[in-house]
């Protein structure tokens, strides 16, 4: 009995001293939490701009004019060496696990390969990717009294998303994209951040830019219109003007091969409310006009992406692989000739007079 008590006491004390996890640990005050990463390439040298969360002190300080972020920079022949360089200048151990957004520069040659590396560095696969001509400028963009924090950027992105101005592309989406992925284009103008279209991102960089007014079409074709979005579709008719708000949308997709051409069939069912109707247009007239408008938006988006830039941002390959696997060779060789068979059905729920 005595022997077992002695062993128990020794074990407890040994555990207390040896299992404290103190050795080799990095304390929070010695760690810098990266929120935003900007990556650019110039003369084969990578430049990384890192936005780091910086606490202004404790005690429930709610002064939003203060900056809660700081920017650090690093250069190197690879992205990781550039981050190491930034770490040296920062003086703290960098933690990439909380990175919310990566801004990829125009001149980065192999964006997919370069960014996939971050997955091995413990970065969340749901980290968002945006595209910019000048990533460092985005990181440095200031609000009145302080710097843009990643949280603010996310809020702006969410607003744009809900209004149909952008689609989200995560690190995992980019890494696993078969052909290309749509990456939102971010711009900074006089300290104001705005999103302006989509970059059709391929393995070897941008294949082209899709204009902002076609992004709604991309959202419909990709089934990314959510119930809490507030997408407004203006309707212009000779009898008068009106606007509808999309309440929800459902997109069914399928692929088939017809006469040596891949046909991508899309059925969109839209549930919408008439927002304003000063011309007192009939429901049928509005419904037909909305249908035509959505069809036009989708066809424009499809044409820009598939026919013009040979970019599969609608994941057509998944439907070819699933419904007509024997046509994968045709997909690989003649993708830009893919045909869009589109059906749009609009249901107007109520007329607000």
């Amino acid at each position, binding site marked *: 009995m005595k022997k077992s008590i002695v062993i128990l006491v020794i074990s407890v004390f040994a555990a207390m001293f*040896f*299992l404290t996890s103190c050795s*080799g640990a990095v304390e929070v005050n010695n760690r810098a939490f990266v929120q935003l990463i900007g990556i650019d390439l110039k003369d084969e040298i990578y430049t990384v701009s890192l936005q780091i969360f910086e606490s202004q002190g404790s005690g429930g300080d709610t002064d939003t004019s203060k900056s809660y972020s700081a920017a650090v920079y690093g250069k190197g022949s690879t992205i990781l060496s550039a981050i190491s360089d930034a770490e040296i200048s920062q003086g703290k151990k960098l933690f990439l696990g*909380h990175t919310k957004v990566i801004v990829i520069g125009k001149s980065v040659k192999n964006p997919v390969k370069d960014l*996939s590396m971050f*997955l091995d560095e*413990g970065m*969340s*696969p*749901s980290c968002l990717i945006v595209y910019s001509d000048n990533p460092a400028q985005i990181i440095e963009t200031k609000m009145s009294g302080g710097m843009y924090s990643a949280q603010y950027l996310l809020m702006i992105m969410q607003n744009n998303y809900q209004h149909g101005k952008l689609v989200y592309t995560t690190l*995992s*989406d980019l*890494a*696993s994209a*078969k052909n290309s992925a749509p990456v939102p284009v971010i711009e900074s103008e006089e300290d104001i951040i705005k999103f302006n279209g989509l970059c059709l991102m391929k393995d070897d960089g941008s294949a082209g830019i899709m204009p902002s007014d076609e992004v709604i079409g991309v959202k419909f074709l990709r089934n990314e219109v959510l119930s809490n979005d507030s997408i407004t579709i203006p309707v212009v008719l000779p009898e008068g003007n009106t606007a509808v708000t999309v309440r929800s949308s459902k997109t069914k*997709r399928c692929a088939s091969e017809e006469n040596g051409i891949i046909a991508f069939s899309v059925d969109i069912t839209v549930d919408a409310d008439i927002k304003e109707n000063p011309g007192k247009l009939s429901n049928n007239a509005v419904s037909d006009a909305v249908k035509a408008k959505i069809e036009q938006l989708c066809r424009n988006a499809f044409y820009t992406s598939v026919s013009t830039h040979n970019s599969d941002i609608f*994941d057509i390959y*998944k*439907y070819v*692989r*699933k419904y007509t*696997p024997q046509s994968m060779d045709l997909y690989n060789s003649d993708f830009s000739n893919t045909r869009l068979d589109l059906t749009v059905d609009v249901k107007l729920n109520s007329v607000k007079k």
Partner: protein
Amino acid sequence: MKKYTIGWGQLLILLLLCRIFTLMTFVPLIGEGYTFSTQLIASVISTVIQAVMIIPVILLNKTISSKSTTEIAFSRNKVWGYIVSILYFVFFIVYTANGVICFQRFITVRFYPSANRYIWTAVLLIVCIYCSYLGIEGLARSSGIVFVLFVAMFVLMTGLSAADIDLSNYYFDRTYNSSLFSAVTEDLARNGEITVLAFMMKHVEKKYRCSAYCYLASKLIAVEAVMFLITVVLGDFAAMTDYPFLTVGAYAGVRFIQRFDSIYMVIWTITAVINISVMLYISSGIINEALPKMKYKHCISGVIVFLLCLPFLISGENKLPIYGMISSSYSVILLIMVIPFIIYIEEKIRRKKA
């Protein structure tokens, strides 16, 4: 009079939890010509094969219910008993070592890259030795609680991932049918815990057959559900990640708590402890049958496992071919089907003669 210690339901949950341990760090082999549809079909075929494979154990249990396969072998012939015991012991010890290495790799790669591998392994084994020393009853009771936690986590994960589900990610690719055979053998190897049935006969009084077949059915449901979730949520990205189940958790975490993977880690750690403890309990049980006078059997089993882990800990390698061979599907077939079948036939002949 023989004392039965656990119920058939407890055995079912215990085995299921051992399978969940492997499932939680399931690494798909899509890049090598496999697709998820192949994996899903392979699991069904593998389960059917396992249902056939366990028939000798079920028959043996019907004939002599109060003894394990090794005990029956010992009661007939000492030499035969030693041969059978060594085969089972080597399998269980190597299987445990594989589990420890798998756990150690997962923890150090995903959560604590700077952690000392030796300390991780030693601490885990000390806990598992103590748990196995407490006996199968305690492990069975704990497994019930852990199983509830796992189900809760899975339901939460599925619910939170619902928005990311894309059914176009699931497809059936006929061109990969040639890899079906190797996918089935790999699935069989991943189900090494089925050999536990050859040892647990003495612990369950009633409904042993029910326990075994319910386990196979529930395991199939669990495997298919997890793989289907991985497929429809991650799609092609699943092939690019080491631990897809953990990645699904990371996705779900975006809408719940920032680090959902920490919940995953806690549950997987407890599952690892139960799995390794069960295997250590069986290994020390086999030592007890072969060498009844030996002391500190649980500690000896634990030390052997630690020694087997040393090559991995020193070199930092993930695999050693010899370990893979010992815990392969062929070993599973030998231990759960061939040996129990020989013992059953031997018993039948002996009874006929008597």
